């Protein structure tokens, strides 16, 4: 308990406590009391923070009658796993696989072209590098609404409206700015000496890229995979506008549809939401340090 360091928010009371108290023993007791209060406050805040998620889980586990009588925030009378299978069969399963297909194709393809571009911008002595980078960066701030009408016309002309292929192409395009930003940030930290040495040995640029630069940038690739995967999994507006048929819908879109169709069946809806969140939760729990690393790469 007394491991609480003197840096950060805790210092406020502690500094004063140290100066005011006379004996080391009293100081120790004082400090551990502070730490206990700190922990209790933090745990309380965390519980309040997670309240919506707790409610969601509790709702997904109970049957509709129980929910209507006892409300969302009560322990289920009996656990009803059938909510999940029923939600899965009423369409969520289908939406789930659509999301898997879209994310599974978009993310690797996107990262490949983004890292190629980032490599050219950092290590190929490219005269226009800065200008091209600024051009790409603009895409980070363009609201989707700015592109919807022309994209509708474009996909119509290419016969790609209401297809997963069309959606994947759009996702790859919109992913370029962030991907280039992250990969460029990482490639810049690679020592030029390695690349130059390979050049002198007669290694071609393509080989340098996929045998040296890309493997060295593995941490950035993993970070980007996760951030981009979650973003693609969660994307709503493009899917909403460019997918028309129900059997092609991805999860976020399907869920909203599901909620309007079965607006009173909270148990199934909660189960459906939980199914859609599960993969993201899993990825987050397994790879959370990469979230920090990836965002760091985007900022630095």
């Amino acid at each position: 308990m007394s491991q609480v360091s003197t840096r950060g928010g805790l210092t406020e009371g502690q500094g004063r406590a140290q100066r005011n108290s006379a004996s080391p023993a009293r100081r120790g007791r004082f400090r551990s009391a502070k730490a206990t209060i700190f922990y209790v406050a933090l745990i309380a805040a965390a519980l309040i923070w997670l309240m919506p998620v707790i409610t969601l889980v509790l709702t997904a586990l109970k049957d509709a009658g129980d929910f209507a009588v006892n409300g969302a925030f009560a322990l289920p009378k009996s656990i009803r796993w059938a909510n999940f299978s029923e939600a899965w069969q009423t369409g969520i399963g289908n939406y789930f696989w659509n999301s898997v297909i879209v994310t599974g194709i978009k993310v690797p393809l996107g990262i490949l072209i983004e890292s190629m571009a980032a490599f050219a911008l950092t290590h190929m002595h490219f005269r226009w590098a800065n200008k091209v980078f600024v051009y790409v960066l603009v895409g980070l701030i363009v609201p989707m609404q700015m592109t919807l009408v022309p994209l509708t016309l474009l996909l119509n002309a290419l016969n790609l409206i209401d297809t997963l292929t069309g959606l994947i192409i759009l996702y790859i395009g919109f992913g370029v700015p962030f991907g280039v930003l992250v990969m460029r940030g990482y490639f810049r930290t690679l020592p030029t000496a390695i690349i130059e040495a390979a050049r002198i040995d007669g290694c071609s640029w393509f080989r340098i890229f996929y045998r040296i630069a890309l493997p060295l940038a593995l941490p950035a690739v993993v970070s980007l995979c996760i951030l981009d995967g979650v973003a693609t999994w969660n994307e709503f507006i493009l899917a909403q506008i460019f997918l028309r048929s129900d059997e092609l819908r991805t999860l976020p879109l399907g869920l909203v549809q599901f909620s309007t169709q079965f607006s009173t069946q909270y148990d199934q809806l909660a189960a459906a939401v939980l199914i859609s969140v599960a993969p993201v939760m899993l990825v987050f729990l397994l790879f959370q340090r990469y979230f920090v690393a990836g965002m760091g790469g985007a900022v630095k």
Partner: protein
Amino acid sequence: MALTTGPADAIAARSGRLSPAQRRIERWRFLPWVFLAPALVIYSVVVVYPMLYSTYLSLFRWDGVAPKKIFVGFQNYVTLLTHNEVFWIALKNNAIWLLAALLVPTSVGLGLALMLNSRFRGSHIFRSIFYFPAVLSLAVVGLIWTWIYHPDLGLANQFLDAVGLKIFKRNWLSDPQIAIYPVILAATWNAVGLPMLLFLAGLQTIPPEMHEAAKVEGAGPMRRFVYITFPLLRETTLIVLAITSINALKAYDIIYAMTNGGPANRTQLLSTWMYFLTYNYNEVGLGTAIAVVLFSLTLIFAIPYIRLMTRKV
């Protein structure tokens, strides 16, 4: 893979000569463009060209189907400003949202970062807990919070019942006067994680010696925050403010999931109103004009960010 064998081996394996044909390609000045081409082409087609074309379309009256577009100059913008009440509601909602986003998630994120920056038992678990809502899609966040605001079964009203504050019970999402605020609160829950993460990263770069030295000199925690921590977080703060404001202006799915713009268009944002005008009322000219307005607003908040990103080139 090459990562485990080390780059030196990879180089050694490739010290063989290039064929004359390969040499010719390698000497080609435009090779970087070959590396850039896939990304640049798809980005230009999917993002840049539509953006320019939308700007152009905002100068026409068009229903999206008719072969003929009628050029009207800036008439669409004038119509929005003078004859479109919902546009003003949306603009006001965007302003409220933006203000809330600049104040709440940023300061809560900073507070959490300061608390969780020190390593104590469980600090990582708490970081994960407070970051977690940020990985959920806004559609999901919207759906979850819709139940919280449910008039009879929702947590919000049940809580007010339990603590004896019945008078504050509301039909949160269908009261036109207040409906936008519960939506913003739900969005805030999702928006806190990113600032927290960025501030934590920023705090790690401050050398602890500075705090130690100041403490020896007798500076209290408040003074140390004001004179050391905060100035050194200046750049992070700038980035956080830019990103949260850009994200606030992008808000769309959460409205769609929670209120669909209602009641009586009271929770429309520029982003959702653009969708309604374009796809429900076939007013493509007005819709694209709103998109241009939205983009211009975003640009104001994004310029410092882009400056910062490119200064370090």
